[in-house]
């Protein structure tokens, strides 16, 4: 025992870490109340805990998730065969562009999954317990500043509660080599996620796509790329996108 220990140091630490049962903790209480050494050690432990709360939690990105899932045999079949590109939805692209987009999607190298798969995988992964939100707030004025300093761009944040798509929060994600913003909305029992990142000028995301029952609607505006991803039916997702684009 060193000078900084009254003999109860590790017991005190266990108490602060929630490791003592009620009887043990009651037995310690009287000593603790009258021991200056304990008080001082408690402040050291508390300070370290508060600091650690601000330490970086390094999260696996979607590409690592995909790589691991692939290696342990849990990956969905290769995406190219399952892509459905509704031609009707691509009229804004023009037939040539639509064809190019479809071909591009089919010939993308296997090493790097196409962006629709990446978006849907991110979305599905976010639906797992504990993964959905980095900031929980229905207030766009809370969510927007939260992204400041965490991204090299400022994503537009809108609440669509009045339209039936309340904002529930946001999170950071990592997509094809860059950090992006994800705005999370609810719609009944469904979750709609809006992925936002600066437009690169060579967008390879089809305007509409479907993967394993998840729909993706993509658009670009004000130098930003937007992809809405959800399992709501396509018409519901279209409505969300229309409302979002019209909202101020």
């Amino acid at each position: 025992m060193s000078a900084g220990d009254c003999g109860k140091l590790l017991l005190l630490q266990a108490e602060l870490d929630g490791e003592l049962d009620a009887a043990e903790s009651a037995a310690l209480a009287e000593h603790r109340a009258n021991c200056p050494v304990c008080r001082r050690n408690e402040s050291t432990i508390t300070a370290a805990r508060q600091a650690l709360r601000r330490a970086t939690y390094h999260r696996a990105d979607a590409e690592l998730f995909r790589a691991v899932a692939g290696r342990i045999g849990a990956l969905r079949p290769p995406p190219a065969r399952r892509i459905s590109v509704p031609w009707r939805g691509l009229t804004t692209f023009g037939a040539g562009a639509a064809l190019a987009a479809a071909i591009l999607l089919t010939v993308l190298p296997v090493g790097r999954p196409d962006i629709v798969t990446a978006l849907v995988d991110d979305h599905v992964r976010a639906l797992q317990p504990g993964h959905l939100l980095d900031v929980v707030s229905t207030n766009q004025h809370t969510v927007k500043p939260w992204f400041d300093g965490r991204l090299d761009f400022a994503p537009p944040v809108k609440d669509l509660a009045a339209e039936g798509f309340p904002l529930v929060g946001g999170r950071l994600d990592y997509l094809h080599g860059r950090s992006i913003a994800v705005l999370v909305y609810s719609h009944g029992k469904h979750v709609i996620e809006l992925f936002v990142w600066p437009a690169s000028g060579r967008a390879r995301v089809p305007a509409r796509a479907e993967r394993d029952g998840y729909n993706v609607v993509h658009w670009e505006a004000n130098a930003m790329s937007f992809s809405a991803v959800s399992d709501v039916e396509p018409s519901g997702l279209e409505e969300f996108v229309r409302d979002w684009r019209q909202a101020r």
Partner: protein
Amino acid sequence: MGSDNAFATVALPHLDAAFNLARWLTGSRAEAEDVVQEAMVRALTYFPSFRGGSSRAWILQIVRNTAYGALKARYGERVVGPAAVGEAAAVEDIPDPTDDPETALIRSDDLARIDALIEDLPVDLRETLVLRELEELSYREIAQVTSVPIGTVMSRLWRARRTLTRAAAAEEKR
């Protein structure tokens, strides 16, 4: 395929925890990604012998051993051996530079600095602290992951916390 999917259900929810631990142990994103991939493949191999209990501790134990393998390959035995522990003891002997060193840590708004202070901890203290504070594992689970008795977990945790607060105070003094 059926048993692979059972493994995926057990393992994939712990992917963030696996990567976080590997990243804090190796200090490098690329190396941590390699460690996680290798560890998950190993875990798949060992899965038939997994007897239940905390699947997170089980996965993290494999990640931790894989990371130590990578560290040994990079630096040789000494980094993760007794030398690291000796280093910790040396830090402990530094007298408190102020009457109230922990306030320096509380005052610090610089998140990168907090990360740097944790990275400077010897690996045995660092992993104990990360498992407790970032992964919120119980003492028993930390003991399982790091293959030491619970008493050792408790003393490492205390040394990690004290070293951290003192290092913050010493840095502020400079």
